[in-house]
């Protein structure tokens, strides 16, 4: 009797657990459908958690790797005002990386673990940062185009279903918009400057335009995570929709700058009320993503070197904290 009762209790418990799991999943789906925020202590599907960790980590890594192409010009900035603006921007990027790692940590991962995955190539960062900054005008082109594309991507993320990510994006988008205006203003100044400065600005836009369009990711029919991310309301718009939105915003801005965009097929489509644009070189996109872009090796090596050469500093801080209590660290 005792054994039979125990069996029955186990079976009841299993049924109970299954019912509970189904109830949790239903509550999650209802919350997402009602545009409520999912918070760290809420139940969430494992795949939702994994997908968010992947996306937020990649986003954080992009901020950190993205410091490099711009920091490349800090010591050569041509005026003290521009130097101050650039330093402040690179500092903001480190800060954005910190917010995003913190937001990712609410999902049960750790910054150390994420950095380790970046350094070993198991997690990615935005392909755009594998392009080199060859002239000062590239700093402006990055501000206008790269930050512009990032904002187009990130503003809808302010309504992402995961609360900590959405809140991080609100803070980040405010600062990004400021950087973008500064980049635009830098390019405008060059465009209206000497003929050499104008040529420098045009050359930078020619080199950064297509890589910026690639920032929105592969076309919708080749995007592995898109459908699920949209169902979970992590993403709100498809890659192609956001890319089109960006082109529509950027074309009149280029005209105002007095610069051209390097696309012979770019023209207004009266019927669609949007710009048509030429084909993207997806072979180049996938090649850069696989690690064969102009700076992939350099970017990851610099990041790894900074981390490895800083190991003794982090060890010293831990040893000191252990001796003197956490508060002293």
């Amino acid at each position, binding site marked *: 009797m005792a054994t039979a009762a125990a069996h029955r209790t186990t079976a009841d418990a299993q049924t109970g657990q299954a019912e509970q799991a189904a109830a949790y999943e239903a509550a999650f789906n209802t919350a997402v459908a009602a545009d409520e925020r999912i918070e760290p202590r809420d139940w969430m599907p494992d795949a939702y958690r994994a997908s968010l960790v992947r996306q937020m980590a990649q986003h954080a890594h992009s901020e950190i790797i993205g410091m490099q192409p711009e920091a490349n010009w*800090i010591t050569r900035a041509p005026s003290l005002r521009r130097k101050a603006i650039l330093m402040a921007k690179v500092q903001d990027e480190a800060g954005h990386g910190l917010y995003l790692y913190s937001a990712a940590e609410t999902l049960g991962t750790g910054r150390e673990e994420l950095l380790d995955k970046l350094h070993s190539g198991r997690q990615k960062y935005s392909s755009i940062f594998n392009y080199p900054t060859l002239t*000062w005008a590239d700093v402006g082109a990055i501000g206008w185009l790269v930050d512009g594309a990032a904002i187009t991507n990130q503003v809808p993320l302010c309504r992402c279903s995961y609360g900590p990510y959405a809140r991080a994006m609100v803070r980040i988008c405010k600062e990004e918009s400021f950087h973008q205006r500064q980049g635009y203003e830098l390019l405008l100044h060059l465009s209206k400057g000497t003929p050499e400065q104008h040529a420098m600005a045009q050359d930078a836009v020619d080199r950064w335009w297509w890589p910026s369009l690639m920032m929105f990711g592969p076309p919708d029919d080749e995007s592995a995570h898109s459908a699920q991310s949209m169902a979970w309301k992590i993403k709100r718009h498809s890659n192609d929709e956001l890319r089109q939105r960006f082109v529509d915003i950027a074309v009149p801005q280029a005209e105002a700058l007095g610069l051209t965009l390097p696309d012979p097929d770019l023209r207004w489509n009266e019927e669609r009320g949007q710009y048509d644009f030429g084909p993207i070189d997806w072979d180049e996109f996938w090649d850069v993503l696989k690690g064969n872009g102009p700076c992939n090796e350099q970017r990851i090596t610099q990041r790894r070197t900074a981390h490895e050469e800083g190991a003794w500093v982090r060890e010293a801080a831990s040893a*000191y904290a252990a001796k003197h209590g956490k508060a002293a660290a």
Partner: protein
Amino acid sequence: MTAALALGDDALVLSHRLGEWAGHAPVLEEEVALANIALDLLGQARILLSLVGDEDELAYLREERAFRNLQLVEQPNGDFAQTIARQLCFSTYQRLLYGQLAAGDGEFAPLAAKAVKEVAYHQDHAEHWTLRLGDGTEESHGRMQRGCDALWRFTGEMFQPVEGVDVDWQKLEAGWRESVGAVLERATLTVPEGPQCGAWAAGAGRQGLHTEPFGRMIAEMQHLHRSHPGATW
């Protein structure tokens, strides 16, 4: 004129050196902190240089021999310990210097009153890292001591009176020795025994005599600006 140039060049050159750390710091928090300090210093430099003339002409079009900064601030970053040793020496000096200037009624008083708040943060940052590195691991202790030893011979120049800077230089030096000595002691480090000045180097930076790495630093800093004479940015 000379005074604003001397103080402005100190801030400009150290800011530049700290800017070289961007993307290379040992932890993300230090990317933020070092850039923050560099920005404060650049802000000070711009105000000070503007008292003398056009900030960009002064930063980008002077030759090496016309810069009036201390040799200390132009020293290469070295490892993180050497950077922190340079920060400890200089920010302690700057805090005491600006503290005196802020208390006076000279032309630098308003600037010093603002800057002294920033500089107190810089000194706090340097002090905390000196403690962590000095009293951290055996390796960090050794590196921190070597950083201090390597820079010690550039510290005497800070106390060579600068014409037009109305402070009590003896009091400044005594305060500096006391403050730095106390931090080094708490960090289990030894106050370096070597001389605080080289044989002919006392006041050299202030007279436009610099160390070899400086020329390379300003070549990089000035290159683009000089490549486009007359352009604005």
